[in-house]
């Protein structure tokens, strides 16, 4: 395969530029920093971008989160470097806007204008697709049918999931939802057999 027709990614351009100007060692360090930033879990003040679909990597605004959903699956993005933390699937965050009066007190304290954030990776076996039940404020994993109540800290209502989805505190800054803390709990699932 030739490189003809390839559209080099932003990081490739960066690597080429740095390779010419600063030497490959420096470029390697920057790449490593990039990789570290991409792997890092959501950091306070991170913005959110869509994780997939037609608007992949576009900024998530309040207008993208209508009352009662549906939820958006997102990745956090460093607001300074614009690096999207998409190296690990476990960084995906589910955002949905609910009526604040329906949230329990812990959930409401972490929410911003009714928007709640949770790990988008099921705690059962790691699926990251969700079916939304707006009336109940519940997401259901289509892989093995675990159900989580997003009004109440993503408590498990049904199915094989052993624990709730880790919650992510949120704030509103400049009219967009941003990360307000760190995941409460470890995203992902246990492979067991210790």
């Amino acid at each position: 395969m030739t490189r003809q027709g390839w559209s080099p990614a932003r990081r490739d351009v960066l690597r080429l530029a740095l390779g010419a100007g600063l030497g490959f060692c420096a470029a390697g360090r920057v790449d490593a920093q990039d990789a570290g930033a991409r792997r890092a879990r959501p950091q306070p003040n991170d913005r959110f971008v869509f994780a997939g679909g037609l608007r992949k990597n576009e900024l998530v605004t309040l207008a993208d989160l209508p009352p009662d959903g549906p939820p958006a699956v997102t990745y956090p993005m460093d607001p300074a470097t614009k690096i999207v933390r998409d190296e690990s699937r476990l960084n995906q965050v589910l955002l949905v806007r609910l009526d604040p009066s329906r949230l329990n007190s812990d959930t409401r304290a972490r929410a911003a204008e009714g928007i709640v954030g949770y790990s988008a990776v099921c705690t059962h076996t790691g699926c990251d697709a969700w079916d939304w039940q707006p009336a109940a404020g519940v997401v259901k994993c289509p892989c093995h049918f675990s159900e989580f109540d997003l009004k109440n800290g993503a408590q498990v209502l049904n199915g094989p999931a052993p624990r709730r989805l880790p919650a992510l505190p949120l704030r509103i800054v400049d009219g967009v939802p941003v990360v307000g803390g760190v995941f409460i709990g470890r995203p992902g699932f246990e492979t067991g057999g210790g």
Partner: protein
Amino acid sequence: MSVRTLAVVAAAVTAVLGPAMLAAQSPISYTAVTEQRLLNPEPNNWLMYRGNYAGWGYSPLDQITPANAKNLVPVWSFSTGVTEGHQAPPIVNNGVMFVTTPQQQVFALNARTGDLIWRYKKELPEDLLQLHPTNRGVALLGERVYVATVDAHLVALDARTGKVLWDTTVDDYKNGYYFTMAPLVAKNKVMIGTSGGELGIRGYVAGFDAETGKPAWKTHTIPGPGEPGHDTWSGDAWKTGGVSVWLTAHYDPQLNLSFWGTGNAAPWPGDMHAGDNLYSSSVIAIDVDTGKIRGHHQYHWNDSWDWDEVSTPLLIDFTKDGRTVKGLVHPGRNGYLWRLERQAGGIKFVDARPFVTQEVFTKIDPVTGRPTYDPERKPRAGASVTFCPGLWGGKDWPPAGYNPKTNYLYVPANENLCSTLVGQAAPYEAGKLFLGIDRPKTSMSQRQGATHIGELQAWDMATGKKAWAHTFQDGLWGPILTTGGGLVFMGGTNDRNFRAFDAKTGAKVWEYKTNSGVTGVPSSFAVDGVQYVAVQSGWGVDAQRMQARLDTFRNTKTEVPQGGVIWVFAVRN
């Protein structure tokens, strides 16, 4: 002195005398598995997934019979320490048992005592998605144990120690490729097929050098540009068209052909991948030396029902119109019992008949076997379509069995279930679900007036007719073991029972309530002249999923405890 103690002593001796002494002070007595032994497995052993290359799930051992089965008792049990679907058979070579579990463990155990010899556990990536958290067993050759992993590796272990001999990264799990099957070993090749059809992969079967793990060949189950059959796909649909290979192939050494069942085309509704979609929902014959496809039969074209034809046809010779046919017999997920002829030049259709209620096929071409569909029963974009059998089909992955003494085929079937799907196209994204349906509108239902779902069916291969059936109220997910003593062993129900049936009459002669639901493949072996039956109990994966669907439409809640245990039974004297 226990085997474990011996191992400790051996390790200490090795530390003093150095690695050169390892073989001489080997911790266990182990008999190398030769190609000749795989071709003619001894009755006291269970050397591969289904016991023999023909895929019968048959042990010639005859100590346990319908008369004494009531005296079966557990001899030992062993907790695997993990949950999810335990589906692998205990594979036994001269008193050494190898068992795989979910989360990529392999246990080597003393088959008579249950003492642990070694344990292997692969560290899995934290971001792995496990749509099917299971493993279906090891393959053996020489003094190696082969296991294909859920993070898309093929690993060879030292049968004596569990030490990793090589670890070949076959594919990238992040793109939806993973392995659940027990490998097939033949002609010094280790062969596996890939799972991932629900994640928009392009399926394949691959062969590896059994000594080194180096790739020998790779054959896609969706032909690429320029290959025969590529024109049965529209546009770029072939690139993400699924066609997984979930289960171990069976092998005909005379023809040098392995026979692989293939999965459905992706995404589910057929109008999203117009065409016949070779080689989806088919059996393909692959030359084990070269990987070349020597023939195929497509059970149904342009799959739209999630009817993976995951099971591998059994190699059974039968008589048809006075002629002996070297056959392939396949109780399909599409609800038809297919009989085909295996030949050096390809696969030829013989006949087919429904073994459960099937409302989609309106006729089968008597020469080619090609079905004609009721268009109103074919899921498509923007329409709500109900069809029977449902998406789990007439029989899913649990393998059927064949007993040459009764000449019966035993089929773990599900009757009276239907599914409703609404097609909805969505773009492909690597490693993500790629089903093409409006998921919340998916539902399951039971046919009006139905009194049961599960059926253990026996089909007489001499007459082509059903000999008997034993019914179960709920779904049946029980792989079959049948024996020379005239028994059929099977679990598969949500009541945790493992059962024995009279192979000739279907009468239940024994049952035992285990720790969890039994979806493991049972096996039988003998040590020191005593016959044992072994099976894993550990509910999960699709058995669990079907139960959840049943509970949804019945508004019930069925709790089946989780957690894996290996059980070994024998007749109490």
